[in-house]
């Protein structure tokens, strides 16, 4: 009781602040009646909000005691056999479910896979190497436009353009990284933010090449081993996929195919980044994140190590971009705004920096949840912000905090 009274003051204060904040958002609403505008007051909303905050604040110490015993779920440590079986089962499910699921669900899952790929790519830069990159979407745009432009100007197909999209994005990462990677922390973040914007503005303003704000449309979907997945072949006398298989044409095939491809690309990204942290370069990233001066004193060139992370991350963004262009069929600069960079960064932070499982789960959550909660779409950003705040308060290390695979002494050599 004594403690409750002690909390009375702060709780009252919090309630007043809540009332002040909530009033303009929920309490006052503009109503249009005919040509007239009038203010409508909804004081009950404000009262409720203030009351809830008041009670929560008042009971906070008690709640703290009560929740102390609640332990956040931790990943059970599994034996390698069980783990592999689990991974295999998940993969099997991921591959087979689109054949039973609805078209929309598969479409959203495809988008989720693109974000998994982007998240894993940025995870290399931010999570492994510790370089805060706010312009990641720039490389995504480079990848998307590489395919779009190659198709538009040279008629390249998706499969021809895919490796080049990755290579061009990687090259951009290398060239942009070269001058800026000597900066650290906040400065690097600001410069990369600028680069992201520059790339977007270039795309808007290089009208003659990129089609300006309208972008490039009519980009073909990927083919299956050279067979198109369309109703009619684009070339006279060509064979389409459904003719080859002797199936009735259905646009769902394309959706499923795109999903499987996105899944494959995401898996390849996962596999590569998984190998990377177990390689010397992965150890060098970790070491560099911990102590740059010590690294230099041992002959490790910080520049080269950072550049490798930056370039590799950009490459994955490039692959993702090319796939995005193929899926959408149209690219324009609108798709590559800063908010996209922020979203990808949010995925990495939410999942737990450097944690691959976390990034995958966060990417899926962030793309799927807004779709499930369509009714609340007006409040999407509000909920998003709230989740971020709560995460930072309760679990700043992310959903699945990273447990880096440490190199162990091989058992057999122990004497």
């Amino acid at each position, binding site marked *: 009781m004594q403690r409750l009274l002690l909390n009375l003051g702060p709780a009252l204060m919090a309630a007043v602040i809540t009332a002040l904040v909530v009033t303009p958002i929920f309490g006052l609403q503009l109503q249009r009646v005919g040509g007239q505008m009038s203010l409508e007051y909804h004081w009950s909303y404000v009262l409720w909000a203030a009351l809830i905050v008041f009670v929560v604040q008042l009971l906070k110490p008690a709640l703290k005691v009560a929740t102390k015993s609640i332990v956040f779920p931790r990943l059970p440590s599994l034996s390698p056999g069980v783990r592999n079986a689990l991974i295999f089962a998940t993969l099997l499910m991921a591959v087979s479910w689109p054949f039973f699921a609805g078209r929309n669900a598969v479409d959203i899952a495809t988008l989720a896979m693109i974000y998994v790929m982007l998240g894993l790519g940025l995870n290399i830069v931010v999570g492994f190497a510790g370089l805060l990159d706010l312009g990641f979407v720039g490389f995504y745009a480079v990848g998307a436009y590489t395919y779009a432009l190659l198709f538009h100007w040279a008629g390249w197909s998706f499969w021809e353009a895919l490796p080049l999209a990755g290579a061009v994005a990687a090259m951009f990462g290398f060239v942009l990284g070269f001058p800026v990677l000597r900066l650290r922390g906040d400065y690097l973040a600001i410069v990369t933010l600028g680069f992201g914007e520059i790339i977007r503005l270039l795309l808007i303003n290089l009208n003659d090449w990129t089609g300006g704000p309208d972008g490039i449309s009519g980009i073909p979907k990927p083919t299956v081993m050279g067979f198109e997945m369309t109703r009619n072949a684009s070339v006279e006398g060509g064979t389409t996929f459904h003719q080859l298989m002797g199936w009735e044409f259905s646009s769902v095939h394309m959706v499923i195919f795109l999903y499987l491809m996105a899944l494959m690309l995401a898996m390849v990204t996962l596999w*590569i980044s998984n*190998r*990377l942290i177990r*390689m*010397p*370069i992965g*150890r*060098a990233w*970790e*070491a560099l994140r*911990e*102590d740059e*001066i*010590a*690294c*230099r*004193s*041992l*002959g*490790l*060139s*910080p520049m080269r190590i950072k550049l*490798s992370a930056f370039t590799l991350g950009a490459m994955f963004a490039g692959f993702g971009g090319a796939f995005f262009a193929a899926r959408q069929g149209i690219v324009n600069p609108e798709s590559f705004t800063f908010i996209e960079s922020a979203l990808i960064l949010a995925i990495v932070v939410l999942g737990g920096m450097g944690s691959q499982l976390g990034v995958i789960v966060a990417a899926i959550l962030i793309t799927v949840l807004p779709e499930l909660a369509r009714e609340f779409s007006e409040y999407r950003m509000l909920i998003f912000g709230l989740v971020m705040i709560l995460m930072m308060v309760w679990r700043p290390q992310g959903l699945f905090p990273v447990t880096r695979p*440490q*190199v*162990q*002494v*091989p058992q057999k*050599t122990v004497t």
Partner: protein
Amino acid sequence: MRFGGLLAVDSVNLELSEKQILAIIGPNGAGKTTVFNCISGFYTPTSGNVLLQGQSIAGLGSHTVARKGVVRTFQNVRLFKRMTALENLLVAQHQKNRASVLAGLFNTPSFRRQEAEAMERSLHWLDYMGLREFANREAGNLAYGHQRRLEIARCMITEPKVLMLDEPAAGLNPQEKLDLQALIRQLRDQYGVAILLIEHDMGLVMGVSERITVMEYGKPIAHGTPEEVRNNERVIKAYLGEA
């Protein structure tokens, strides 16, 4: 070396021959560590030069200097604290890696051989320093004396020509100091490195070094064998103050 208007270190002339153990001593703020930073490439000397086997290494940048075989430890140990002792040694061998990223991705035999060799060298140095049992322990959790030894091992694994130790005995107990003295000798005798030492502990300095340079206010005031330095009047004054 000049920082703005401050002349931090002036007319220091050191010569370290092969397999020699040379110590720099002097009161706090005499500029010993600044000399270290100039040699190891962390500072670019504003005038003067640093020669390694007749080749200038001044202003090359610290990682290039390290690659040429001049490596150092730090006054306040700089290990990768959240990596294991073993990993600290593996990272230090980064420059030896010849396998490409692709070879690593596909885990080719040559990549695996290289990793095995790196592991073997690391284990050798862990054994050498008596740290084998702590191999899988995070470096930040090791006892201070062990951290110091691990830092020296991390330098030695790069196979340097010159090993620079910045106050290696600071924070060690008397027994550990004796061990360190033996270790420094042993490293020189077995691995043929020249050793440049900054140290305040006179017992260690007098016991281990062959030549000593004394600095005060950024300038060298004496140079010679331990015997000569011990009896030098200016040195005695610098350390004990004017009588």
